[in-house]
């Protein structure tokens, strides 16, 4: 009951959070330096041409009028359309987001398993060889830039060993994509029952997932280590041992104490990766959300940038809300009155 009440309040708060995301998306973009008109028209355009483009894009009208228009559009599900391709932003988001979500979720799973494992190993054997070994691995993972790791993995696993397919996107050039249901290829190919495409999708995800998984495992390892060491030294764990509990159970007790910070870190990483995987997406021609956002920003495609901020903001909002509710479910001491 305690948790249900809290969950309801958190969900009721969502619209307020969403409105601030909308305002933020609008203001950030409209306060952004750079004049899209000049970029669109090109260096050779004359003043009349520029004025014409400005009028067409609606940029000659006052800020508040544009905001009201924007809000009205949002209510109708209209996020505007790209300055360049004229495609509706909403359908662009729906096209790109699933690819990124698939990548980010798989990467986070790999990162969490690897990182929590490494962090636990180090924390449990604190001060001993395993601790130093784990710390060395984690430091190495963290000090290699993610793009470099991607290139290294491509070089080793594709170019030299030939284990992985070429980094040409989510599928091979010859593969026929399954009919889009969720937009996530792994899911859609399973729905279509097309195992050839599924295997190809898995093979193509391998290196980008491994890159992000390895890179971000360092963060999980550090937060696991940082929260598990004090948990293992706590009076609670000492009492558990004094009662004769086996080490397995003792470790489980320590984890129960340490899991909230680890989970919180996972949530933050999820939010950060929604747009932050852009470089890796670009390297692997992933056709994802972050890649789309970077392109839009470089082209000053303002409706697209707005759409990106809105979607990423909404994703973050949902992730944090789910996380807070999860933490409340897991910790009976959390009270919110």
């Amino acid at each position: 009951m305690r948790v249900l009440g809290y969950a309801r309040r958190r969900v009721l708060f969502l619209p307020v959070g969403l409105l601030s995301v909308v305002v933020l998306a609008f203001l950030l973009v409209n306060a952004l330096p750079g004049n899209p008109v000049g970029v669109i028209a090109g260096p050779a355009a004359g003043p009349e041409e520029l004025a014409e483009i400005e009028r067409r894009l609606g940029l000659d009208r006052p800020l508040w009028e544009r905001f009201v228009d924007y809000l009205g559009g949002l209510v109708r599900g209209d996020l505007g359309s790209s300055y360049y391709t004229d495609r509706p932003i909403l359908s662009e988001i729906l096209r790109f987001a699933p690819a990124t979500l698939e990548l980010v979720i798989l990467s986070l799973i790999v990162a969490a398993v690897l990182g929590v494992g490494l962090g636990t190993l180090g924390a449990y054997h604190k001060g001993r060889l395993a601790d130093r070994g784990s710390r060395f691995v984690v430091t190495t993972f963290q000090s290699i830039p993610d793009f470099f790791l991607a290139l290294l993995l491509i070089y080793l696993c594709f170019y030299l060993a030939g284990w992985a397919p070429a980094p040409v996107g989510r599928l091979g050039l010859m593969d026929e994509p399954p009919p889009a249901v969720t937009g996530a290829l792994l899911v859609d190919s399973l729905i279509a029952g097309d195992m050839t495409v599924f295997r190809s999708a898995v093979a193509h995800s391998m290196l980008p997932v491994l890159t992000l998984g390895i890179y971000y495992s360092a963060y999980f390892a550090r937060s696991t280590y940082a929260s598990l060491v004090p948990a293992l030294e706590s009076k609670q764990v000492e009492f558990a041992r004094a009662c004769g509990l086996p080490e397995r159970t003792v470790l489980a007790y320590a984890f129960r104490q340490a899991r909230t910070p680890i989970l919180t870190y996972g949530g933050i990483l999820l939010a950060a990766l929604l747009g932050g995987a852009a470089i890796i997406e670009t390297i692997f021609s992933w056709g994802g959300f972050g890649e789309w956002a970077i392109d839009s920003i470089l082209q000053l495609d303002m409706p697209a940038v707005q759409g990106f901020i809105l979607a990423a903001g909404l994703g973050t909002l949902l992730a944090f809300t789910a996380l807070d509710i999860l933490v409340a479910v897991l910790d009976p001491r959390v009270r919110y009155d």
Partner: protein
Amino acid sequence: MSAPRQALSRPTNTGQGADREPRLLEVSGLTTRFDTPDGLVHAVNGVDFHVDRAEIVGVVGESGCGKSVTIRSILGLVRPPGRVVEGTARFNGVDLLGLRAAELRRLRGAEIGFIAQNPFSALNPVMRIHRQFANILAAHGIRSDAIARDRARDALADVGIAGPDRVLDGYAHQLSGGMAQRVVIAMAMLLNPAFVIADEPTTGLDLTVQRQILDLIRGLVQQHGRSMLLVTHDLGVVAQYCDRVVVMYAGKVIEHGSVRDVLTSPQHPYTQALVRAVPRPGHPLVHLTGRLPDLVDYPAGCPFQARCPHAFEPCGQVFPEPTTSASGRTYWCHLSQEREAAR
């Protein structure tokens, strides 16, 4: 402090030699160090003492003198950077320090119960009390949840908790301090151990509750003929609840004996200082000044020399030999030689 408890109605087993039945617990030469960045901390330095059957032994000494580390060493709970470097702790003749981890684990909880200092930091805050009882029983081979529930109910009833089910289905933070400590005691007694170790079991509780808890523990110990090692820094508690007492200073035992001997005629200047610091009618209150010596740069000779009003020449050079009286009281002080000579 009132006069020490004189009613020694229970046998103290002093007549039993090591040649007949092994003592319940016999600790000798126990030495534990912590290898910290600041240097090697000499936390416990050659501690000897014993606990007999059906006996309550108090361990006193100011904070930081090594009481908890001694207990942790006996139970095999010292973690790196700490290490037990020397000594034995024979429990029914078996050296606990020589046991394999799994064997020692099976003794903990089953034959040696542990009552922790602060129940709220000892109990798992995010696990229902029932599950914690069940885990202890499962660790010792009792895996049925229904049996676990019955055993937990009985254990809670034994510590005077009237509605055990409500407690079992709840969490630690929903309990009062006294109730939570009762739950910890119930866990320590759950598997009917012959020996109980309590590390300052009433710190942080208010005075009336402290009495109730100590009475409860003593009752549970005496009813079942158990023994207990009771760590405290309160001489009043020692006087009222213990049969014998071990006084520690800077990781060493400096005096031990029956409570009556040690508290009415303390021989070691540190014990004398502890006794003088307890308010008693007709006696001036004298507080001990100064601090424990640096445990990293451990002093040669007697560790108490820097604070001792009687310190003289040999004190800075060698640690004194023990002096034992007919009643079995032993203390480690160079003054004993002077006293001999004066005789």
